[in-house]
């Protein structure tokens, strides 16, 4: 066990998989110098420039090259820098990577891990702050992972690299410095397994990524007010742990989904709809308004989902129960 940061956990996960499997390699802009956030620091020195490869500013090529290289026996880790820039490579991800196995009748798999850092971070404004995880959950063929702790980032990134499906792997930029205990020898977590961050019997709060930390804090706030919230961090959005969520829902009698992304057609809608279909309990969502993200801190902060907002909404749900 070691106390390391979320970013360092990601770095070590890549390094470990590169050690174990010579077919793993990384490609993306500025990786030779460690990547724009330092997620690849030292890896080019350790594994060579061929396996930790710089790239031109060519997102479409980065993704397309990874698809071709994955169909022919390598396991690329694709770095998109900001998930917003992955919008320059959507054909490659959605029409090619996600569909190749199916279209070709199973002749090929496309084992790529696409790292797409998401989220609001230091006044980055509309083109560097998006959280579009819901999009990828809608695309057959893709796996979607949104880790929120160093331990999960380590274990899930390793699982993603080992997975034979194309995985959209979304780290949250605001979590880079977050520290936590990581057991580098633990078994990898199965994709699709949620974590119960806090047990409770009064209400279920479902979240993921950085917002899961807010949900945990909301759990604490609520505890002070005598409400025992069960806080579930999905970690993986496709597949997602419906069993766990539905079991918790029947136990607590209510589910609130909280996420940083825009509420309309966010993944919270899928969770809420699924719960509504399968469990007869009230559901609610707390998410961002349908507006781009502004630069100025006041306007940026107001659209952010906070622990306080989550707790407030839970209290309204509890009240409504009468």
């Amino acid at each position, binding site marked *: 066990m070691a106390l390391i940061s979320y970013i360092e956990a990601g770095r070590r996960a890549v390094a470990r998989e590169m050690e174990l499997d010579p077919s793993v390699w990384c490609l993306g802009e500025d990786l030779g110098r460690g990547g724009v956030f330092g997620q690849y620091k030292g890896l080019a020195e350790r594994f060579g420039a061929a396996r930790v490869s710089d790239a031109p500013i060519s997102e479409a090529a980065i993704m397309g090259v990874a698809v071709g290289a994955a169909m*022919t026996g390598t396991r690329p880790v694709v770095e998109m820098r900001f998930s917003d820039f992955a919008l320059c490579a959507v054909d490659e991800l959605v029409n090619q990577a996600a569909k190749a196995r199916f279209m070709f009748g199973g002749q090929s798999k496309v084992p790529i891990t696409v790292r797409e850092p998401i989220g609001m971070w230091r006044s980055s404004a509309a083109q560097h702050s998006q959280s579009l995880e819901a999009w990828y959950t809608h695309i057959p063929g893709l796996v979607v992972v949104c880790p929120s702790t160093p331990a999960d980032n380590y274990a899930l990134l390793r699982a993603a690299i080992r997975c034979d499906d194309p995985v959209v792997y979304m780290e949250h930029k605001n979590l880079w410095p977050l520290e936590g205990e990581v057991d580098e020898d633990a078994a990898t977590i199965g994709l699709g397994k949620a974590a119960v961050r806090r047990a409770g019997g009064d209400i279920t709060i479902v979240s993921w990524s950085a917002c899961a930390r807010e949900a945990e804090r909301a759990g604490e706030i609520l505890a002070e007010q005598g409400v025992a919230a069960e806080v579930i961090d999905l970690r993986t959005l496709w597949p997602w742990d419906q069993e766990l969520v539905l079991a918790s829902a029947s136990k607590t009698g209510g589910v609130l989904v909280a996420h940083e992304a825009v509420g309309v057609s966010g993944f919270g809608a899928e969770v809420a709809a699924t719960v509504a279909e399968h469990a007869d309990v009230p559901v609610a969502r707390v998410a961002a308004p349908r507006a781009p993200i502004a630069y100025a801190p006041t306007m940026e902060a107001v659209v952010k989902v906070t622990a306080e907002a989550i707790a407030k909404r839970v209290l309204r749900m509890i009240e409504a129960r009468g």
Partner: protein
Amino acid sequence: MSRPNIDRARLRELHQLMHRIRAFEREAIAAALDGRVLGAIHPSIGQEGVAAGVVTNLRRDDRLLSTHRGHGHTLAKGADPRAMMCELFGRVGGSCGGKGGSMHIADFGVGMLGANGVVSANITIAAGAAHAIKLKGDDRIVCCLFGDGAINRGPFLEGLNWAKVFGLPVLFVCEDNDWAATTRTSDMTAGEGAAARAAALGLATVTVDGNDVAAVDEAARQAIAAVRGGGGPMLIHAVTFRHTGHTSVDPGAYRPADEVARRIAEEDPINLCAQLLSLAGVSEEELASDVAEAATEMAQHAAFATEQPYPDPAGAYADVQDVGSPLERAY
């Protein structure tokens, strides 16, 4: 017209292959007309010189990336025409189990990594397959064919730049048939076209008459040797002509009829090849037997495909992904 160094046997092979490609597509078009083939078919009739001349110079373990107009490329790479026909018919036994159809035909067993329904998308994928070869250090190469319309999409720039920057073993082939669907490509293309753009990216380029299969064969042989030898990516610009409409249902009325008629008469790669063979002493009977054999072979495949059942609908849920069932809590 006489030529030095004509390898008669080689040319005869190419003649046979071109006829097989054409016969395959004639069956496919007929089947599309009468409803046995349901999806879109983009015939390459008139362009067989490029498919035959380029692709037969590849090794079986070399990789090929193709386009929406890929039957010829796929056959030339050695794919099983019966499985291909079944695929076009959407039947059991198809190369992709009936999931892809004409636009996604693939046969990984012979290194044919897929036609593609998105123009230009195969270019970066080809660069990726070549990148994998470089990482592994073997001596395969990748061949990537695309149309003249494809050079106006971003992946052309990004893919060629990538291949050159990393010195990858990939041969790009622009199959220039003058048209992109109903639009004359030159109307929408600035500058001198594929070769000039590739040259500006530092690639060595060759322009060749794509209707002269012997010339294509020679150019491809040389280019492939250079690429395999570590010379980095190259581009062949092959000028050709499609005889049919863009798809099997397109009458092609937007093209001047006289121009089409003239080019079919003067530039058909099969005719030109047959003339060369005649001059080289191949008899009319031999040439005719190439036609007949190809026709018979492909008619048999079409008849076979016609008899095959459609796939079990349950296949719609297979080959999606390892993690997360498509039917998990399906509605």
